[in-house]
């Protein structure tokens, strides 16, 4: 088992003929992901790399290929529309890699998804990977190893750094999920923690948060109340000044709220082992496994 994706994942790539979409589609196929369709309006009927059928709409792609997961690589200006389209076509899992979607667009997207029972991962995220099974998004497959640690993170390259530490020191991963750096996201820490708690192939979870919002604090309460598996936590942005967006749209300390110190304290209160730096991940995990 793994969370959200596995060998049953049948992927449709929205924006498959674009620069990013085509590059990452090849990477995903190379990793073993079943990419069953692509969508680029106006290019329906073509074959991508002579193998993947391209459709004009997600609805066509789903009807013809029974795709059950969509990944979005389209530009920010049309990304919200791409999420609406995937949800409307009945896709139950939608992963949006695109960065730069307006927050007000997300206030309309999220209720639409909720009404249709679709799960969104992201936006502004690296996607997810179940090592040796499936990869949806842009997480480099070569740094991951199959194993029993679940990873959930608001970041991209920081996740790679921590996964790299795990893999090179013998701790493989069940699934790594990048939930995204935006203030409004479809899948939060609690959704992922609860999936990892239920997953029989996950023994422990690494949670990588950052400044801004209260998602980590709420996740800490959830860990205390509902999790039996050990959780290790990291918060990026201890040196971030208040009131400034640190790259990610959601990484901002508003007033005195959303600081790293506040989140690390919430972790500690909930019994989550707090990493002071990325290199602490393996020693802390080994103590608890």
């Amino acid at each position, binding site marked *: 088992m793994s969370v959200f994706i596995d060998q049953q994942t049948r992927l449709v790539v929205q924006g498959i003929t674009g620069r990013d979409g085509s590059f990452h589609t090849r990477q995903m196929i190379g990793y073993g992901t079943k990419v069953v369709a692509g969508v680029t309006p106006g290019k329906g009927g073509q074959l991508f790399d002579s193998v993947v059928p391209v459709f004009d709409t997600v609805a066509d792609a789903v009807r013809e290929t029974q795709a059950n997961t969509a990944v979005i690589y389209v530009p920010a200006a049309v990304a919200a529309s791409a999420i609406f389209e995937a949800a409307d076509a009945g896709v139950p899992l939608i992963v949006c890699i695109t960065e730069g979607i307006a927050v007000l667009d997300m206030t309309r997207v999220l209720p639409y998804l909720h009404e249709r029972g679709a799960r969104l991962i992201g936006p502004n995220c690296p996607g997810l990977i179940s090592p040796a099974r499936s990869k949806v998004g842009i997480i480099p497959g070569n740094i991951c190893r199959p194993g029993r640690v679940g990873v959930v993170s608001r970041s991209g390259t920081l996740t790679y750094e921590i996964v790299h530490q795990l893999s090179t020191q013998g701790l493989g991963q069940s699934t790594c999920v990048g939930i995204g750096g935006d203030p409004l996201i479809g899948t939060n820490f609690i959704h992922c923690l609860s999936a990892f708690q239920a997953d029989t192939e996950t023994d422990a979870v690494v949670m990588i948060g950052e400044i801004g919002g209260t998602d980590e604090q709420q996740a800490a309460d959830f860990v205390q109340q509902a999790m039996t598996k050990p959780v290790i936590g990291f918060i990026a942005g201890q040196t971030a000044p208040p009131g400034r967006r640190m790259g990610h749209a959601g990484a901002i300390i508003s007033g005195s*709220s959303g600081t790293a110190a506040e989140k690390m304290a919430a972790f500690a209160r909930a019994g989550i082992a707090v990493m002071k730096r990325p290199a602490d991940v393996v020693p802390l995990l080994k103590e608890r496994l």
Partner: protein
Amino acid sequence: MNLHEYQARDILRRHGIPVPPGEVATTTDEARAIAARLGPGPVVVKAQVHAGGRGKAGGVKLAANPAEAAAHAAKILGMTIKGFTVHRVLVAPAADIASESYVGIIVDRTSQRPVLMVSAAGGIDIEEVAARTPEKIHRLAVDPRYGLLAHQALGLALKVHRDIAQARATADIMQRLYAAFYAVGASLAEINPLVTTRDGAVAALDAKIVIDDNELDRRPEIAALRDTSAEAPSEVAAREAGLTFIKLDGAVGCCVNGAGLAMATMDLVKYYGGAPANFLDIGGSSNPQKVVSALQIITADASVRAILFNIFGGITRCDDVATGIVQATRAFPLQVPLVIRLTGTNEELAVQILTQAGFPALTDMDEAVKQAVAQAKAA
């Protein structure tokens, strides 16, 4: 992106919200002329800067006549408030205030909806009130599919006004503010204070609007309101080069790919006893030109004593960054030591490129940060 008060007032006015007259001056003569135009009564001269607490800092003054308005403008123009130099003042008639309240909208991350906030305590710092006396703020999460409904707005307005005419006027203002919020792509819009005058009218005396940066590409008319004089020149240059850069006070310049890793790198600099000079995310692309721009921006800061590259190659190819570093340092020889850490995609190739150019390359993040901190201290 923050808007100035006068820009926010313009937006509200265009959405039909009653806003008292007022004009912007950049010189004392203009301030005098505006005060004269506004009529015989007293005027307020207000500094237009992206900082709260303008009144306490001496940036808001009452003037009895045009000559006094000019004198206040002379003092306020050019003054520095919380690090921001004042280039403009708003000159507006002094309002005859009977009561003050607060109306604001934010996007709430937990409910994932726009939330209207109303308080009878006007002219306040809403975050302070929210922290100390949250019961004084009335909140309503709005369903964005239907917008702020009339009865919802009136219900909220009645929490701050007993007079039904004033409550109706306030409810109308709330609905217009909600429409403006979506129309301009705001992440925050507040009227603070919303006042009732002695003749019973309700008006927006001061306004603050923050625009979601992700809205700017599709709203050129809003993007044009950006005041680059209110930003650090290095941050303006970085934005134009497609980089995310935030200047800090330390001596270790940081150049990292990815926002999370960039923050973690700054934190690790502090962990090893140093202080980061900046946040800089060169993004996912490996364009060598971005590396050149990044180095130019970092080295323009005289307090930088050492530069640290921390690259985790995923999509970013380490050899591309290495090539960028070599190109950049050939074009602009560095005056400060450089510590480079690269790992991931094409790491071996990158190390080869750097070694040939005479740069040692590291693969361990902790080791690189330790060295950068030590070199910054030795310099």
